[in-house]
């Protein structure tokens, strides 16, 4: 699966500044592609626009070469599994039932689960290390457990692409590494993975390519070693940083320096 955006502009009703301001993007098939950028830089909006849940004001988004608006939602969900940043859990749904929702694109509104569906659900529960929680209510889970259950639901869709918005935001090191390894493994098996994250170091270790966003625009794009330049990062994050090569991982590491306010790069441009 591939994702493309051409001159994508999105403006939310009632806001003056566009959330996306002419983004160009091309995510090739089978890569782990990370999207980075400060809070409010448009990462989540990019995900929504690429998957057709917010309409663009200008430009276009395409999945596998076909405009996203032309996809039937169920058909798209058979190919792309997505985990948005936050989700309401107002009701006591069992973990297994939540993961089983990932079979909706295959089953539709009435067809009952078959052996294929049950196998997909069990496999997803196991891969995300949540099989032991299957009977628990989602309301009783810790933040990290809930994240893994939601990722399991996307895996149960058996998609050819995964799009995740900060999936490791509240995970401890073990589960953060487990999830990233899982995504890396999926990419190595040919699944396209689009990962929105704030974790610069882990993105550098696991991603094939990186898109750096700022103020609704794509600022830099390429392999981690190329994008991670102190000058670019300082400009985007408005904080002094140092980039070092980590011998242990072979990937660049970003170290934010503690600096007196006077040394900080200027606050956001209008």
């Amino acid at each position, binding site marked *: 699966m591939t994702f493309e955006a051409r001159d994508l502009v999105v403006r939310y009703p009632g806001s003056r500044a566009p959330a996306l301001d002419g983004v160009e993007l091309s995510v090739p098939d089978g890569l782990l592609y990370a999207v980075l950028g400060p809070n409010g830089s448009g990462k989540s909006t990019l995900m929504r626009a690429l998957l057709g849940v917010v309409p663009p004001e200008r430009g276009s988004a395409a999945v596998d070469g076909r405009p996203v608006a032309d996809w039937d939602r169920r058909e798209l969900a058979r190919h792309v599994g997505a985990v948005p940043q936050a989700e309401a859990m107002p*009701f006591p749904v069992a973990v297994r039932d939540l993961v089983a929702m990932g079979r909706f694109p295959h089953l539709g509104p009435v067809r009952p689960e078959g052996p294929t569906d049950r196998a997909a659900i069990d496999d997803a529960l196991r891969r995300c290390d949540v099989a032991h929680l299957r009977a628990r209510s989602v309301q009783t889970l810790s933040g990290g457990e809930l994240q893994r259950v939601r990722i399991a639901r996307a895996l149960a869709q058996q998609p050819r692409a995964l799009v995740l918005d900060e999936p490791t935001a509240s995970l401890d090191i073990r589960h953060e590494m487990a999830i990233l390894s899982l995504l890396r493994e999926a990419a190595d098996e040919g699944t396209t993975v689009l990962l929105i994250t704030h974790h610069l170091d882990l993105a550098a270790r696991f991603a094939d390519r990186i898109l750096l966003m700022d103020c609704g625009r794509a600022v830099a794009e390429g392999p981690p070693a190329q994008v991670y330049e102190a000058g670019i990062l300082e400009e985007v994050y408005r904080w002094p940083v140092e980039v070092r090569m980590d011998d242990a991982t072979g990937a660049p590491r970003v170290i934010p320096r503690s600096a007196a306010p006077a040394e900080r790069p200027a606050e956001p441009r209008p």
Partner: protein
Amino acid sequence: MTRPLRLVLLAATPVAAAGVAILVGSAPVPAGDLLAALLGGGTDLARRIVDLRVPRVLLASLVGGGLAVAGATFQALLRNPLAEPYILGISGGAATGAVLVLAAGLTAVGSWTLPLAAFVGALLAIVLVFGVARAADRRLDVRVLLLAGVVVGAFFSAAIALILSVSQASTVRSAVLWMMGSVAGASWGDVGVAAAYTLPAVAVLLGLARSLDLLSVGEESAAYLGADVEGVKRTAYVVASLLTAAGVAVAGVIGFVGLIVPHALRLVVGSHHRVLLPLSALVGAAFLVLADLGARTLLGATEIPIGVVTAFVGVPVFLVLLRRSMA
């Protein structure tokens, strides 16, 4: 208790409730005579009583089941476990229609005028709420809908107060009693009308059960999982609203059925709507049949409005549920 056993027990409640409600009452007739009358024999008196009670029990079942299903649907759509069928101002519209008919003395024209006016009032409330919500936002936004419901409800409350303030005391009394709900004097015609609305509406909502599962975790996630979010929302809101409107039209405003029945069932059987919606229909039916039994027996021969019974039972149950869900 195992889960299948629990489901069977819950599903059997309306049958048991209907049996008790037909055999028990304020008239001093032995249950044996009533049972015989139910099977075609028995005394004249027993047959007359059965003829009164059977449509009443059926009407209470249809209204109770419909309100509980509508409540469960609104809870999923609004992602709020405390939503109930009247949350979008439907009861206010229905009551305004009913009060207008009572104040104008139109009930003399025919017994059908009051339910019809109530139904039209409910439809007007639905049109207003969705009109306001859609004017504010092209999609049906949960928060905008809730606010529109509050505002439209307030408007109808004012309209009712205005009409009642210029009405005679006897009209005010009938209006207040109507607003507390009743299935007394149910005819087979009422049962037919209620069934014609309730059964297809419940069937449509059952068909949307899986989509409601998806919507209850959020519209963005539901879209990513393949749901036709706007289509499901539109259909479910309209059908659940019509279901509520039909219930209010034939039985007045009966509170708490649509709130506590689905809310309690979620705690017992989970929030799988394919299980929750049919069980809500059955347990809602049983609950209202028993509430009606209470309404016609608790004060001897004097009827209490059924909404008073559901509130007296509903409030403590609700407090217990609230405590349990907070624990």
